């Protein structure tokens, strides 16, 4: 196989692997526009277009970033937790913090982080990883389909909305209570830090 042909094969595999993810993000963007949330829709659309552009090779390559030190990351996370918990929900401060966190996560997450000292999965782990992936995918798909059902019921049969609440309907009143908002914010920030530290290139 010539180097050019090998590049073509590699490139078409990248596009094929990326398209399902682009479809998921694009469909989510569409749902956001339908529910009249244009900012949310624009963010998802931008990510979908960026991923598609990257897959077909028109985005310049960027090397993996060095992960920020533990202390600055924890200090930033603590500051974000305090601001998001103690300032009014849906307020300007929360908006500024979320825009900053989104920019940091999406820009920092684009190239990925350098591989740390984590071990590669051993060949014997492959079956366990596959089982784990299938189970996580099942949980995610059931959750998304159930939430989508609530969304469709809300749109088509608004009088039935109380019978089929969405996750938002269930969590919204609780988030107005300080203790639950603190719990939610800490869990959400911790998850973000964990996600950003994963997937190092080897």
């Amino acid at each position, binding site marked *: 196989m010539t180097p050019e042909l090998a590049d073509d094969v590699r490139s078409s595999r990248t596009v094929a692997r990326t398209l399902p993810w682009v479809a998921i993000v694009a469909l989510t963007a569409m749902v956001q526009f339908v529910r009249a949330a244009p900012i949310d829709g624009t963010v998802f659309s931008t990510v979908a277009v960026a991923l598609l552009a990257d897959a077909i090779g028109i985005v310049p390559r960027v090397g993996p970033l060095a992960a920020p030190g533990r202390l600055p990351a924890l200090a930033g996370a603590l500051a974000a937790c305090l601001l998001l918990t103690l300032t009014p929900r849906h307020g300007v401060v929360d908006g500024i913090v979320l825009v900053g966190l989104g920019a940091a996560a999406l820009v920092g997450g684009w190239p990925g982080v350098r591989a740390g000292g984590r071990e590669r999965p051993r060949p014997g782990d492959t079956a366990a990883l596959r*089982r784990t*992936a299938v189970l996580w995918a099942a949980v995610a798909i059931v959750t998304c389909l159930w939430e989508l059902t609530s969304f469709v019921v809300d749109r088509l049969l608004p009088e039935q909305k109380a019978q089929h609440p969405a996750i938002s309907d269930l969590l919204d009143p609780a988030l107005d209570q300080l203790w639950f908002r603190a719990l939610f914010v800490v869990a959400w920030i911790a998850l973000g830090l*964990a996600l950003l530290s994963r*997937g190092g290139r080897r």
Partner: protein
Amino acid sequence: MAWFTTLVFVACGVAAVALWLTGRRNALGLAPTGQLFDLILGERAVRMTVLVFWWWIGWHFLVARTIDP
């Protein structure tokens, strides 16, 4: 019916926590969730999809209109 809808969401949350805890102990033939994420998040499309959904959860519940009118 509302109780059943809520129960399904709670069951999904419990299943996620159970998967995480079981994987941590390498029990029932499951791998740690962190190891799985190390593997799948190495792919940019997956990483960016997961990150944008993570960000949106924060945005939706803390900043934007959480409940549609």
